[in-house]
């Protein structure tokens, strides 16, 4: 009997010939990522359990990316980044993307692949639920808590249960105006926010093969919104080219066997997808953008690990070029690299920043997680009152972007941009003729 790509990676990382869903196994980690919100607590657990003078299992394996609460006056947030600085110095960690220095990058899940820390076939643990993003590069990546992360930090290992896999096969050509975000929102709408609890979500088919690596990341990013343990896409030429452009470290590509066992297989035709939104207050409250056109919005937000990559801003610019927004439109590039690219990449002869400025968007904020998860009250773009915000982010539970009175509507960058123009939820195909 064959194995899935997830099972093959976990077998390899546990030194076994094969593993089966439900088995509890010790796996070796290649990378442990942590950030400013969970890093200090993880370090606290590590020191409590292994001693003040303990050394991390592999200094090259620990990647520290402050990104959540960077541009705030909150003193505890600054203290937390200082705690990371002290630890990095003490442990001589080479991979630290320090705010306020030239090494600062921004959102961890976009930084990890950009800086070459994501490689096919590896195991990546991160103290953030959206760590599942990195399965887009053909690796096993999942989010863990501080205590587990403290354990990994000291041992390089973690006890995990092998997940069964649900396979999503999507074939065909996506219609104009439909993006990876629409695919994953539709799937979450179909299976529900606990439809893949404890499961691996494997995405395959010609549509997935046709997506860029960044768009694949958008899909895997939201596996957790269906309860998934990891999202994963088999590596192909695009993956290999992308990874080789970021790192010279060797890696191994795994693929699911034709006779691999799946919990279920769901098939979709790309032509059937339409621009969708997830209305408050759950990512599975999915409706087509067209049938939601009566929903008025107060602001539009383009940013985060799932919706603030350069491809996301290119989508938004295609739509906003030569048009004006009628609501406050917040732009938060995920990383410094994305921020720079927005000044260089052109659509019809104009840079993205020029297009956004002419459309009347607020000036882009410096890269960070910003208001995706609310954050301290002085966070850029945070919903502090009863705002209704259409957003390219990934969650819309009550209070997600700040105040409990606010409402978040999840959408693709196209839909967020189209809605910014009209002031209500708008199918982007009305503009993308």
């Amino acid at each position, binding site marked *: 009997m064959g194995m899935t790509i997830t099972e093959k990676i976990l077998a390899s990382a546990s030194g076994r010939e094969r593993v089966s869903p439900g088995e509890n196994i010790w796996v070796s980690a290649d990378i442990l990522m942590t950030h400013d*919100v969970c890093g200090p*607590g993880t370090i606290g657990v590590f020191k409590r359990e292994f001693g003040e003078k303990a050394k991390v299992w592999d200094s090259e394996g620990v990647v520290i990316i402050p990104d959540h609460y960077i541009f705030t006056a909150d003193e505890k947030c600054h203290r937390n980044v200082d705690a990371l600085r002290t630890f990095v110095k003490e442990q001589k960690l080479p991979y630290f993307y320090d705010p306020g220095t030239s090494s600062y990058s921004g959102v961890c899940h976009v930084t990890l692949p950009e800086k070459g820390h994501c490689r096919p076939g590896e195991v990546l643990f991160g103290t953030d639920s959206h*760590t599942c993003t990195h399965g887009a590069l053909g690796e096993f990546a999942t989010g*863990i808590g501080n205590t*587990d992360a403290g354990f990994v930090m000291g041992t390089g290992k973690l006890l995990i249960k092998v997940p069964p896999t649900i396979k999503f096969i999507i074939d065909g050509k996506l219609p104009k105006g439909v993006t990876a975000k629409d695919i994953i929102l539709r799937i979450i709408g179909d299976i529900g926010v606990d439809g893949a*609890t404890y499961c691996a979500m494997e995405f395959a088919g010609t549509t997935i093969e046709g997506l860029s690596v960044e768009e694949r990341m958008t899909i895997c990013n939201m596996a957790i919104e269906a309860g998934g*343990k990891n999202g994963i896409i088999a590596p192909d030429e695009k993956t290999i080219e992308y990874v080789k452009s970021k790192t010279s470290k060797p890696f191994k590509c795994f693929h699911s066997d034709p006779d691999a066992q799946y919990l279920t297989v769901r098939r979709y035709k790309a032509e059937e997808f339409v621009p969708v939104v997830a209305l408050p207050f759950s990512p599975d409250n999915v409706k087509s953008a067209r049938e939601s056109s009566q929903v008025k919005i107060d602001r539009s937000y383009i940013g985060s690990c799932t919706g603030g990559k350069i491809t996301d801003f290119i989508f938004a610019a295609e739509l906003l070029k030569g048009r004006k927004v009628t609501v406050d439109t917040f732009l938060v590039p995920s990383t410094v690299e994305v921020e720079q690219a927005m000044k260089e990449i052109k659509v019809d002869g104009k840079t993205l920043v020029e297009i956004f400025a002419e459309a009347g968007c607020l000036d882009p904020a410096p890269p960070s997680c910003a208001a995706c998860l609310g954050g301290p009250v002085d966070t850029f773009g945070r919903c502090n009152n009863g705002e209704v915000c259409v957003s390219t982010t990934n969650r819309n539970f009550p*209070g997600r972007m700040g105040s409990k009175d606010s409402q978040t509507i999840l959408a693709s960058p196209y839909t967020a941009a189209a809605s910014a123009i009209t002031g209500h939820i708008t199918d982007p195909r009305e503009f993308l003729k």
Partner: protein
Amino acid sequence: MADNIIRGKVFITGDNIDTDQIIPAQYLNLVPTIKEEYKKLGSYALCGLPDEYSTRYIAEGKTRTEYPIIIGGSNFGCGSSREHAPISLGAAGCKAVIAKSFARIFFRNCIATGEVYPVETPEDLNKMLKTGDEVEINFNARTVKVMSSGKVYNTNDLGAVKEVIDAGGIFSFARNSGMIK
């Protein structure tokens, strides 16, 4: 835990109680391994629940709860991997969360930290009980008993993870098995 029993008043919540409702992100500047901040996290437990919850988990002016048992529906603890979530509940005085199902990372974090026991039941107990009812969870008998009516509900088997809980979390489990010193 005396005789493998937890007894106390329940606080009823709904389906999909996510980590932002358990501990809103603005309080994630608090570090759980710092003692005073651990306590502070407890005082904010479940403060992200919408205002429709007329009874608050932590009464105004208090830092700890009078409800040691929380009952949710499906997918309790979905959302973020923040360990602040089970920790804030534990720090508030919660001993166990009963739910039809748990989100994976929250469940795992409960076990890894030992802060609260995650108890799954085949039935939606949040639809059968009301806030303030008293119940008794018996881990040996794998039951939840409603004190006023005497009605008994079964809980699901914890499976292989019970070994980790019984050991007292992942560090003790690994030490017992010789994985680490």
